[in-house]
């Protein structure tokens, strides 16, 4: 029953690389919840929106998914800003449930829109490098998985530095810790929320491009990624970039190792059990405050 380390090397490596992707998927979700205490149940669908937009660019004008981000990111930044400013800010002023209901509405709208435009068929972002694989230390590691991790790290670092070093970033952090006090500093907290949601949407879209390159996706793929985002945030805790990364990796490892020991059918189950266990032992997450 004791596998040699080299047998485990594959699932462990895959788990870590996948973990990077999961961390980026969770990033926007974590930001919105951390700043506005808003649970965006449409988050997974916004991720898949990124996948579909890249798919449209790829099949329509043969544009590489990474290049299509040049168009996708500004678009979702603006959409996210407007959604928070004109819809969600008002909903938040009404009650705690109202914004969740609106996000639920978005989720349904998006999933149905995907089906209407692109049919229920499973899609994927297939590029010249989709199957490229490298031999590193005897393991076959896919380029896409490597890119997922590298880009995940880069985005998380950029976001962390933005929040730490710029006035706007600090204002968003301040608004998340004490809204009233932030207003007393001259900070327009409604506008800060709009910026935060815009950034979260951009992160989701980016995650969507990576997801589309890594897995097949369909109109209903949003919910599984929402659950992953939940899981990562529960595992890693809120308010810490490192926490989100570790949460992603733990989730990824639980999945790949679970699949290794119990079969592919069990892999998500093992990951979810891991989330429940952490929730029971340390509800604020490994790095949570």
């Amino acid at each position, binding site marked *: 029953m004791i596998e040699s380390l080299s047998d485990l090397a594959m699932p462990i490596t895959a788990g870590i690389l996948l973990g990077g992707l999961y961390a980026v998927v969770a990033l926007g979700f974590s930001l919105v919840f951390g700043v506005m205490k808003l649970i965006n149940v449409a988050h997974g669908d916004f991720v898949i929106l990124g996948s579909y937009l890249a798919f449209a660019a790829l099949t329509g004008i043969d544009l590489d998914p990474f290049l299509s981000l040049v168009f996708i990111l500004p678009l979702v930044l603006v959409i996210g800003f407007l959604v928070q400013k004109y819809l969600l800010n008002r909903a938040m002023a009404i009650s705690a449930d109202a914004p969740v209901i609106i996000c639920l509405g978005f989720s349904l709208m998006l999933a149905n829109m995907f089906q209407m435009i692109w049919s229920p068929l499973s899609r994927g972002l297939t590029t010249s490098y989709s199957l490229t694989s490298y031999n590193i230390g005897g393991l076959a590691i896919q380029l896409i998985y490597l890119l997922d991790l590298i880009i995940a790290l880069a985005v998380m670092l950029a976001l962390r530095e933005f929040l730490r070093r710029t*006035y706007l970033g*600090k*204002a968003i*952090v*301040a608004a998340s*810790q*004490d809204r*009233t*006090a*932030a*207003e*007393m*500093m*001259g*900070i*327009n*907290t409604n506008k800060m929320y709009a910026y935060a949601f815009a950034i979260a949407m951009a992160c989701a879209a980016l995650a969507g491009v990576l997801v589309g390159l890594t897995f097949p996706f369909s109109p209903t793929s949003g919910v599984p990624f929402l659950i992953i985002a939940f899981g990562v945030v529960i595992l890693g805790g809120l*308010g810490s970039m490192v926490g989100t990364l570790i949460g992603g990796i733990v989730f990824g490892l639980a999945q790949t190792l679970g699949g290794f020991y119990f079969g592919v059918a069990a892999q998500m189950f093992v990951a979810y059990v891991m989330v429940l266990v952490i929730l029971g032992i340390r509800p604020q997450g490994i790095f949570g*405050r």
Partner: protein
Amino acid sequence: MSEESLLKVNHVDVFYGSLQVLWDVSLTVRAGEIVALIGSNSSGKSTLLRTISGFLRPSNGNIEFKGKRIEAMNPYQIVALGISQVPEGRRIFPDMTVSDNLVIGSYNHGARSKREGNLKDVYMRFPILGLRRNQLAKTLSGGEQQMLAIGRGLMGEPKIMLLDEMSLGLAPLIVDELYRTLREIRERGITILFVEQNARRSLKEADRAYIIKSGRIVLSGRAAELREEDEIQKAYFGV
């Protein structure tokens, strides 16, 4: 000292829903003054500050700052005009460092260019903050947090500072220190309106004072004169 009013509250009524909490409240603060607003718990004193800051709207009356009507403005807009509030309970940002708390105090565009100079000033005035500049604000003691809240208020280059129950829960020695700071701040040309429960101490520090009780201004005048009115003090405060 200029005779023109910097801040003028004119006959405001304020409601929480259908419950009236302020009745026909008027108050004036002139440039360069230290004015005290004195009242016990639930006298309406904090409500009045919150109304001046823009978190509440008066249903009657108006508020002027340097002649400009501000009662319908949002809090963040009022701050930009030069009104800085040091709120009840300090409300420092707990999971931000001392230095970040101060830096965010200079968020307003006019104050950003003066940030480094103001930071140096604050650290000089409150050396303990300089020592703890990289610590999370929630790890500071009550007195240190109050200094941080005042320092943060100063970073915004205010014309007037509103302080809500600055001395609450603090040891007398620290309170002395803080009032000394207020006097220095006034020397620098910043006007001060502070809200307190302790009548005796407040009247020692202020130029003029207003006494608020059950949502109404019941007494006002030069602090020196109010200090003499022993009987009235006893009647209103039991001090």
